[in-house]
C-alpha cells in the first residue's frame, strides 16, 4: 500500500518536473523568437523544409481524404436522399478538422522527427556546446528559426491541403458519382463561412508551433549516444501527435461553442 502511494507520488512529482521544464523551455524559446538578432537564412531554410518539401505528403493525404469523404457521405446520404449535402460535408470537414489535423499529424512525423534527430545528434556530438563557445545562443540559432518556420508554414500548408482536399471531393463526386460540376461547386461555396477556414488555419498555426516545439525540446535535451537520439525522435513524434489531438479538441471547443 505504501509502495503504491509512493509510486503515485513519485510519478506526480516527475510529471510536474517535466511540465515545469517544458514550460521554462517554451518561455525561453519564445523570448528568443521575439528578440533580435534573427537568423533569416535559417528561418528561410526551415520554411522551405517544412512548407515546400511537405507539400507532396500533405497533398496526397488531403486529396485522398477529400475523395473518401465524398464516397462515404454519398453512400450514407443516399439512404435519405440528401446527396446534395455532400459538397458541404466535404468542405466543412476538410477546412475545420481534417485539413489541419491530418496535415499536422503528417508533418509531425516528417518534421518533428527530423528536428529531434538533428538537434539530438548535435547535442550528443557536442555541436550544441560548440555553438555556445562560438558566442552563438543555441536557442536563437537552432530553436527560434524552427519555431517561427513551423508556426508560419503550417497554416499555408493547410490552406493548400484544404484546396486539394475539396478538389478530391469534387473529382469523386463529378467523375464517379455523376454530379453536375457547377452545382457541386455552388454547393461547396453555399454554406462555407469565413470562420470555418480561419479556425482551421489558427489550429494549423498552433499545431505547427507544437510540432516544432516538441522536436526541438526532445532533441535539445537528448542524452546518451544513438539510443538517446532514437528515443528523442520517438518522443517528439508521439508527444506532438497527442498534443495535436488534445489541442484540436480544445480549440474546436473555443471556436464553435
Amino acid at each position, binding site marked *: 500500500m505504501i509502495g503504491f502511494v509512493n509510486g503515485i507520488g513519485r510519478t506526480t512529482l516527475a510529471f510536474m518536473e517535466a511540465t515545469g521544464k517544458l514550460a521554462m523551455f517554451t518561455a525561453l524559446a519564445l523570448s528568443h523568437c521575439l528578440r533580435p538578432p534573427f537568423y533569416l537564412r535559417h528561418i528561410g531554410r526551415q520554411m522551405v523544409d517544412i512548407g515546400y518539401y511537405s507539400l507532396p505528403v500533405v497533398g496526397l493525404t488531403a486529396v485522398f481524404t477529400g475523395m473518401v469523404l465524398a464516397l462515404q457521405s454519398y453512400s450514407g446520404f443516399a439512404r435519405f436522399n440528401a446527396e446534395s449535402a455532400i459538397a458541404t460535408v466535404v468542405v466543412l470537414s476538410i477546412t475545420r478538422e481534417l485539413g489541419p489535423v491530418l496535415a499536422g499529424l503528417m508533418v509531425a512525423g516528417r518534421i518533428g522527427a527530423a528536428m529531434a534527430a*538533428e538537434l539530438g*545528434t*548535435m547535442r550528443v*556530438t*557536442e*555541436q550544441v*556546446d*560548440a555553438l*555556445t*563557445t*562560438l*558566442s*552563438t*545562443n543555441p536557442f536563437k*540559432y537552432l530553436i527560434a528559426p524552427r519555431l517561427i518556420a513551423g508556426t508560419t508554414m503550417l497554416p499555408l500548408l493547410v490552406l493548400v491541403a484544404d484546396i486539394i482536399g475539396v478538389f478530391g471531393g469534387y473529382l469523386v463526386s463529378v467523375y464517379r458519382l455523376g454530379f453536375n460540376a457547377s452545382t457541386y461547386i455552388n454547393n461547396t461555396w453555399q454554406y462555407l463561412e469565413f470562420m470555418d477556414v480561419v479556425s482551421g488555419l489558427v489550429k494549423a498555426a498552433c499545431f505547427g508551433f507544437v510540432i516544432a516545439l516538441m522536436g526541438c525540446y526532445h532533441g535539445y535535451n537528448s542524452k546518451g549516444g544513438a539510443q538517446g537520439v532514437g528515443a528523442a525522435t520517438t518522443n517528439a513524434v508521439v508527444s506532438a501527435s497527442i498534443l495535436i489531438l488534445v489541442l484540436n479538441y480544445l480549440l474546436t471547443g473555443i471556436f464553435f461553442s
Partner: protein
Amino acid sequence: MSMNGNGAVNGQGGATPKISLQGVKKAFGPKVVLDGIDLDIARGESVVIIGGSGTGKSVLLKCILGILEPDAGTIRIDGEDTTHARGREREAMMRKFGMLFQGAALFDSLPVWENVAFGLIQGQQLGRREAKERAVATLGAVGLNPEVADLFPAELSGGMQKRVGLARAIATRPEVIFFDEPTTGLDPIMADVINDLIVKCVRDLGATAVSITHDMASARKIADRVAMLYKGRLIWVGPVSEIDRSDNPYVEQFINGRAEGPIQMQIRAF
C-alpha cells in the same frame, strides 16, 4: 612559484590570473565528479591537465566555459566572477575563448570553411566573403589546402577533422584556447603534427592555453605547467620540468603508464 602536493598552486604571482578557480565542485546526481578544484592560470601560460578517463577533465573545461554550471565554488576570468554569468554577459565572455572539442564537434550541416568562419560571421559580424578568406587562411595555418574549404566535415579523416576543429578554435584569435584531447585517436605522427600546430598557434596568438591529454609526449611538448586530476581533486600541480621528480606516486604511475600502483582501475575480475 610555490608548489605543494595537495592544493592550489598559483602561477606567476602578482598580476591577476587569466583564469582562477576556487573550490569548484560539480556532481551529477550522487556522482561527485569535481570535488573542490583550485587552480590559477596566468596570462599566456599553457597548462595541461592529465588524468585517467572519466575523471572529469572535460567537465572541468565545460564548467569554465559555462556549458555546465558548477554546484559550488567560483570561476574568475580576468578577475571577473563568471560562475553564473548568462545571456549577453556569457556571450561576451565567450568571445575570449576558443575550444577544440574531444570529438571535434564540427557542424556537419555546414561546409568546412563555414565551420572555421562561424565565430567570425556570428560572433564578429564579418561579411561572408571576408570571413571565407580568413577561414581559408586559417586552414592554411593548420596545413590544409584551400580545396578542403568546400568539403563537408563527414568527408574528412579524423586527423583532418581535428585540424579543422583547431582552425575553428583559433580563427577568432581568442585570448584563451582549450584543447580537449587533441591527439587522442590519431597515429603518432599526426599526433605530433597536431602538437606542433598547437604550440605554434598558441605562441603566435600569445594565448593562454588549457589542454587535456592522456598522452605524455603531447603534455611534455605543450605544457608550461601540468596538473593531475584524480578523484575530483588536483593532486599535483607543477612545472612540466619537474614532472619526472614529482615524488607523487599517483603522478609517477600515470606518466609511466603502469597498471600497478595507487590508482586502481575499476575492473572487476570474472
